[in-house]
């Protein structure tokens, strides 16, 4: 299964964290620090896989993609295929790209909830449930539409409805 999805900036700041096995906050911080340490030391143009035995347990690995100022990292165990995970990162990035029209770090920073919505359409409890980025987007849009239609009746601070409306 997928153990975690992490988006970490090249400065070491977490931008999105989702652990599919419960980790208390202190442990999460430790994991982010470890992962960032492991990734930031790696030169460009090397493989995208790193062993993660010491944080996620025996046989687990990280697959990551370095995009501009972000590391997108998936942690997975022996029940997943390495190249399939690499594909999945691609799907995730593609979906973000379509959703935000050329995604950049700022989009990720300001769309905390939407990112989780996208991720939740893709992975549930560590299991991949959808790999088609268009389908994922459709579902996310549906959710946004429903929430928007219900929120027009209530009074919501601008900033929030704007975020949900995107």
């Amino acid at each position, binding site marked *: 299964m997928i153990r975690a999805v992490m988006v970490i900036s090249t400065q070491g700041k977490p931008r999105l964290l989702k652990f599919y096995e419960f980790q208390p906050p202190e442990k999460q911080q430790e994991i982010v620090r470890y992962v960032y340490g492991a990734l930031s030391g790696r030169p460009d*143009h090397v493989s995208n896989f790193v062993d993660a035995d010491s944080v996620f347990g025996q046989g687990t690995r990280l697959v990551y993609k370095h995009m501009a100022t972000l590391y997108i990292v998936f942690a997975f165990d022996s*029940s997943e295929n*390495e190249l*399939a995970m690499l594909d999945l990162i691609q799907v995730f990035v593609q979906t973000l790209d379509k959703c935000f029209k050329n995604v950049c770090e700022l989009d990720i920073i300001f769309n905390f909830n939407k990112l989780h919505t996208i991720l939740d359409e893709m992975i549930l*409890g560590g299991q991949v449930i959808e790999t088609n980025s268009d389908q994922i987007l459709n*579902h996310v849009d549906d*959710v946004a539409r429903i929430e928007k239609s219900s929120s027009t009746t209530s009074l919501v*601070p601008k900033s929030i409805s704007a975020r949900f409306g995107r």
Partner: protein
Amino acid sequence: MASPPPLPSSTSVLSSASSLADSLFQRSLDDLIKSLRSDPSSEPSIISRSLSEIRREIRSADPLTKSIALQKLTYLSSLHFHSMSFAAFHTLELLPSPSPQTKRLAYLAASLSFHPSTTDLLPLATHQLHKDLTSLSTSSSSFPFLPSLPLHLLSLASSPDLSSHLAPDLVPLLSRPSPLQPKAVAATYRVLSLCPSTVPVLFKPLVDCLSSDNPLTVSAAVGAFCELSAPPNDPAPYLPLAPEIYRVLVNSRSNWTLIKALKIFSRLVPLEPRLGTRIVEPICKFLRESQAKSLVLECIKTVVSCLSTHTEAMRLAIDKIKELLSSDDDPNLRYLGLQTLGMLAPGHLWALEESREVVAQSLTDPDRSICHEALRVMMAMTLQANSIESCTLLVRQAAKSDPEFANEILDSVLTSCSKDFYELVVDFDWYVSLLSEMARIVHCTKGDEISRQLVDIGLRVRDVRPELVRVARELLIDPSLLGNHFLYNVLSAAAWISGEYVEFSKDPMELVEALLQPRTSLLPTSARAVYIQSVLKVLTFSCNSYINESGSLVNDSVIARMLSLIEMTVGPLTESEEAEVEDRVRNLLGVVRLVANIKDLSGDKGKDGMIYEVVRVMDDLFSDEMGPVSANAQKKASVPEDLDLKENLADLSEFISGDDAAMSRSNPSILFYPQSRNSSEEVEVGPTRVAESTSLEEHRKRHGLYYLSADKETTEPELTEDYPRVNETLPPSNGDTARRVKVTKPRPTVVKLDEGEDLTASSSRSTKVEAAKDDPLSGAIKDVLLGREGKGASSDFDASSSSQGKGKDKVKGKEIKSKKSEEGESKDRHKGRRKHKHRKEPAPSVSVAQETPVIQDFLL
């Protein structure tokens, strides 16, 4: 902006006023993020300020204010690692919110922060989850994705209790085709693994999903079974599903699904090798035709791990591995190539051998992950036959690598070479010089292990001792090594070896000079003590050979120089503050003064028989052969009859406490080695380890180690009558010697005592297997799949198992199915399919051994 109505009720005017202010001037999540970004340096203060805001706002009666507070808190908790456990109740309060937006926020907060281990309130969510899970069937007005929210929560934060309560609600979601079905499948896996008692309810609908029309559902279901059968779970209960999964394997178009199906088969084939012949054909087809690298990779892994007897598949897989290895432009493929190559060992070493060059080259790759894999492969293909070549190459590589990787290389060389009493090592002369070469590598931090092995080999392998002494000499005479604190243990081991096996030394004088060189003052006490003790041994040996005129190694002038050198350099150390050093220095000087007389009497040897006698006795003492000590030796030593272990040792503390305290203050790391081999007192105290003498325990705690240090390489095991003389008692017909006979070059005998290690390993393995058998999940699944009438089974389960009894013959089962499907009622069709499945996997008996017939039809 309109203000939400403040709740008057019982709250005080003040708090309702503040709540109103909170609502009016509440900062949104965006505001929070902006302020965090505008001033990164004052982040902690901004966060603590907003946390206190949130604590106030979240108690607000206005749901909107509350939800925004929760949203901010979720953000801070998720990305700034602040605990949000205090908000658990508020999160629960928002779960039933009519606004889908708030509901979603609440569910997100819950799924990110709830866990049975930390959230006591989790049971309170049960009802709401039940309501939301079933909302689709009860009211169509609510938004259609609602049940997916509790599914996420259920899969991330469920407890066994919650799982068993909500399992029935998953059944309709599982059995009705909808966009939610895959999600329900994924959540079902988590529920099943958390709460095996839900198996009777959930397992059959889950199995049915394997034959769903929705490819996503099939994919999720195969994924779920892949997880369920993953180690440490026992895959055996899923064997009856093989036909279903085979159907997926040949019919599915999705690479994702195929990969998961292959993973399941790679766990099932070892249990039922005949499955291999069925799946080998589609796998070969994928290997030949598939364009998807991920699928090809999975096929390679499956073939390598469980189809190695199928030559055609093996050939294809090995070709593909070579293809991966040769993809120069893609490090990922090279990495995975190495990984799969490592899986080929030990069965197909010829294939590894063919790629040896690529592997060796990969050790220098800039990518650490590739280096790791290359190292792993390298070690996997290291055998007795090529160990010299491989290890030399690796150690040479370590010398060139960065510190971290260098030590990893050294670690794996040391570990694999010492495994099973140095089974890999044929030429010990080579190995000990390799050890010293490793110690000299600049970044080497493996000194402890190297020194352990040097001494261990010295004790176990008699034939290697001359070479060992030569290697030790080289280490000792190099003054530059004394500055490297990682090597102190190695030097200490070298000093011990030179002293213990001094008879192989070519130049005792040089040895004494090396052991007493000025830079030895850099050594820690424990190492220094060993150095001085070794000087004593060398001196005794020299004197003895001088007296006996055995060989021309030692003459008048040598003895004279040696004595004066020792007196000059060691003399000042009598004032040493380190008890360990001081003690030995005094011993040494005592002997020096004693033998100083010999020189004067050299012409007339018969005159002072006393001195000769003393020298000879001492030499005898040191020349006693030592061997490795069995871990069980202590147990074998019988307690002397006149020793009263229960005797109170309290009076001991009176004369210990004084100088003891002083010593522990000056040097807390002081070690007490069993110095005197002839001291009967020591021997008598030894067995008290068995007795629980509290004062002794305390004493030992205070000094770390006592009497028998754990790593006793630098010490001498007591060779008194009470202890078995390890070397002598060793039966020459030790079972393991037979194994080594086939080696062409005679390999020196390695003394082995504790073969028990293997025993413990295998016993732990077997208990693990037993544990897997006892696993409640697999037990429950076996019950369901094999139609065992479990006591705890629900009525639903009973019904289906009785239907299985009826539908034992194929035709009848088919009739039932067709009849039911004619009725067109979905529920019945579902049932019919279930029966059909059951008939396909009839289990005449409950015993595990008889599971094989279960899929007989499929195999033939």
